[in-house]
């Protein structure tokens, strides 16, 4: 095991469950933040996989995710923002 694979293990075991926990609770807009951070972590994991296993073609997956991840988040933010302004607030929001 080299340092790159160790970094993958740390990110997948410590960072990803926290991102998933943030994605799984709260209102729809709050979940969006967890999704965005999960996309960033997975991009880093894909780049590290390319180096750790010595397969340079895996870096292309990181490039594709780096382009498509923010686009998906923008679409979600657009739909969620427009929906919450047009419809009355019926959700039970936590007062933190």
């Amino acid at each position, binding site marked *: 095991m080299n340092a790159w694979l160790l970094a993958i293990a740390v990110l997948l075991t410590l960072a990803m469950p926290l991102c998933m926990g943030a994605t799984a609770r709260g209102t729809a807009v709050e979940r969006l933040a967890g999704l965005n951070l999960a996309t960033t972590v997975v991009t880093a994991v894909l780049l590290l996989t390319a180096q750790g296993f010595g397969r340079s073609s895996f870096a292309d997956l990181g490039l594709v995710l780096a382009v498509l991840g923010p686009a998906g988040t923008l679409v979600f*933010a657009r739909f969620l923002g427009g929906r919450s302004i047009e419809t009355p607030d019926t959700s039970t929001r936590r007062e933190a």
Partner: protein
Amino acid sequence: MSVRHVCALVLLVAGTGVLLLSAVGLVALPRPFQRLHALTPATTVGLPLVALALAVATGPGRAAVKLLLIAVIVAIGGAVTAMAIGRATAQHERLLRKDSPE
């Protein structure tokens, strides 16, 4: 162990640490607007440091340029998505008027 390898390891540990701290902050910060502060360090500092470590390890060439390009794309995209999520949160909290400019 060469100097280049040590530099790559230091950058990798720093980038992974920033990504971990962002994930911890996302869970630890309670309010929606505070959570936005956990998103931008991961995209503008964490992943570019990891990509820089990989570029230092691979050495000069096309692969390093591609990694740095990915770092730049993620940094720009992360800033844009943080603004979009902030706007959606403001609309959700009724802080923006319906006819506010896009």
